[in-house]
């Protein structure tokens, strides 16, 4: 795509070929006014949402555990992703699993971003956001729904979670459910530890898990 645009941004760089022999006569037409695309994009976001054409809206927000990708469908927040997960790869998966009509649309994530800000500032203990849990199925969904009941500053072990969801032998599957949580931070898989109190794993990295637990312990 840039290969097509580049001849016009630098029209004198190469002698014009027979098919592009406009000698720069068109140059002023080829300039896009500064800011035009940003305002057109913002207008498109609103029009697309009004027309019900968006499968997923997303935004990226800074946080103490690195830049977070927030993605939502009409039903609610569907994905939170750490920078380490590669946001482009995450969006590609959303395109395949939910639909490719995906636009960066920060206005649609404003409420989620605000609540996350409050949480990281120690001013919010639970999230009050509609969630779209369609990326989780079966036992994993059961586990993740249970996690939302573990209160701020509290922790449970993988074994306790397995017992509480009625499948005490499924400790390993609880670990898998936590490791594939599509909504980390908001659905608090960071509050699940090993029985001996050690951290276990975390898809945002152990540093992020430690930071979240420290934040909740201090608040």
């Amino acid at each position, binding site marked *: 795509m840039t290969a097509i645009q580049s001849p016009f941004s630098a029209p004198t760089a190469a002698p014009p070929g027979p098919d592009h022999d406009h000698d720069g006569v068109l140059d*002023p037409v080829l300039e*896009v006014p500064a800011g035009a695309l940003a305002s057109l994009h913002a207008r498109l976001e609103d029009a697309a949402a009004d027309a019900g054409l968006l499968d997923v809206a997303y935004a990226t927000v800074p946080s103490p555990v690195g830049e977070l990708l927030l993605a939502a469908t009409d039903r609610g927040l569907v994905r939170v992703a750490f920078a380490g997960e590669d946001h482009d790869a995450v969006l590609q998966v959303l395109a395949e699993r939910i639909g490719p*009509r995906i636009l960066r649309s920060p206005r649609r994530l404003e409420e989620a971003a605000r609540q996350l800000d409050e949480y990281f500032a120690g001013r919010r203990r639970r999230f009050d956001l509609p969630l779209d849990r369609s990326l989780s199925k079966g036992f994993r969904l059961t586990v993740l729904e249970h996690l939302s009941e573990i209160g701020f500053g509290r922790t449970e072990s993988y074994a306790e979670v397995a017992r509480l969801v009625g499948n005490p032998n499924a400790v390993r599957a609880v670990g898998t459910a936590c490791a594939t949580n599509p909504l980390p931070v908001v659905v608090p898989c960071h509050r699940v530890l090993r029985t001996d109190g050690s951290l276990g794993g975390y898809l945002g990295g152990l540093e992020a898990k430690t930071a979240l637990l420290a934040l909740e312990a201090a608040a």
Partner: protein
Amino acid sequence: MKTPFEAIVAGHGATVLRVCRAVLGPGPDSEDAWQETFLAALGAYPALPADANVEAWLVTIAHRKAVDAVRAAARRALPAEDLPEAASPLGNPDELRSPRDREPALWAALASLPDKQRLAVAYHHVAGLPYREVAGILGGTPEAARRAAADGIGTLRARLAGPPATAEPRTSKIRTPKIRREGVLQ
């Protein structure tokens, strides 16, 4: 496997805006056409074949939106027997010589091209589509699209290079392809 539509907007948004401006001029009509193009493209995106040429697809949609805009403008315009005399807001082309100053004259010259030439210039020189794709959008042969684009560029160059009296497009070198074409046909 389809990339998120955001990548389509990021990758082609500027090109489509250039095309809309070339076809409709730099005013709000071009921005409306851009909007309608990407909104229609978003709706149709899930059904787009994975191997489609995305830029040609977008320019085809932009073409339809631009044609709609031109028709709508024609419907809005009130026919007038006597046009009021007024100074051109675009300035006198003869006095505009630096590239920046020539810009209004270029827009005016572009707007005055016959539709087919302006569209061929927009889709080939501005969008970068090969003549085969341009012909697919405009109808006719690739050779006809090439001639329309060449005639359009020739006219623009002539209008911007000197006083209109010495810049009759029909006498400029852009007519030479016709001779060559006849040679081919013999």
